[in-house]
């Protein structure tokens, strides 16, 4: 009997731990989905290429290449990390230059007139 009791306790413990673990991940997945729907722009990461950033933020690649002082080349898959290393500077500086260029581009190219946006709603 004693042995059976211990086994059940262990099973119950594992069962509850698994449920808690599953619940945590489900809550996180839900939060991510909600956030994703509200903010379509991705945080710029060192693995991304200039092409990827331009695609994700819907900004023409030449604008971004110009902002970081790189000659645009087709099919350039180089990650920002590598470009920063080639330019002898930190990837964070490179990323903040890209962010500034994106903000600047969006300011000078507002979305075509459609239903009116709430005040300040278009800022990234």
């Amino acid at each position, binding site marked *: 009997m004693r042995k059976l009791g211990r086994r059940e306790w262990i099973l119950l413990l594992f069962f509850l731990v698994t449920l808690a673990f*599953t619940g945590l991940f489900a809550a996180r997945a839900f939060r991510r989905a909600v956030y994703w729907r509200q903010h379509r722009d991705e945080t710029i990461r060192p693995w991304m290429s200039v092409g990827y950033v331009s695609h994700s933020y819907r900004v023409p690649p030449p604008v971004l290449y110009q902002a970081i002082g790189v000659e645009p080349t087709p*099919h350039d898959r180089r990650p920002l990390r590598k470009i920063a290393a080639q330019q002898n500077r930190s990837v964070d500086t490179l990323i903040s230059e890209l962010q500034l260029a994106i903000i600047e581009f969006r300011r000078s190219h507002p979305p075509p007139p459609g239903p009116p946006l709430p005040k300040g709603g278009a800022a990234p």
Partner: protein
Amino acid sequence: MNLSDYLLSGLGIYGLPLLFAALLVGSVGIPLPASFLLLAAGSFVAQDDLSLWPVLGLSAAGAILGDNIGYALGRWGGRRMFTSLSRLFGGMNRVNQTENWLKRWEGAGIFFSRWLITPLGPIVNITSGLNHYSWPRFLLYCVTGEALWVLLYVSLGKLFSGQVQAMSEFFGDLTWVIAGLLVALVLGWSLFKSFRSPPMRLKSKT
């Protein structure tokens, strides 16, 4: 910079060879963000920076090869180690019970752990080898499951090519939710059975 950042940077720099190697190593059991790599590869395909068929072919080949290495390790390398380890987990009787359960569900286990519950893949490979599960069958489920996984994630990456990071985080969590629910189901069922079975019978077994 984390591991994902380094691997994805590598995908940009080295392309297909890195994709093949990472999927192979990931399928053997080294925890790598393989699904994230497939999504990113899909995004590169969408931007014409990688071609679709080589991405699909090499990814699937890497994953299938890795699975078979795991199977071989279980089949030819692991029995003695497994037997000594099994003493820690309630002796051979319990292990045999688990093995019987696995034998019954192995086909579905192999197939679904390729694409739906990917974190379980490496464990399923090794247990399939340990159980001497028929290799041609293992290969069949392995090829179909991995082909589905690669196609699914590369297509998703291609479709949502501007939101790879967000997609990967979301699907990563979703995979753990599915795996967690499955484990909870198995544990809950054993608990239920253990409550229902008369204690005398179990006592006489030990």
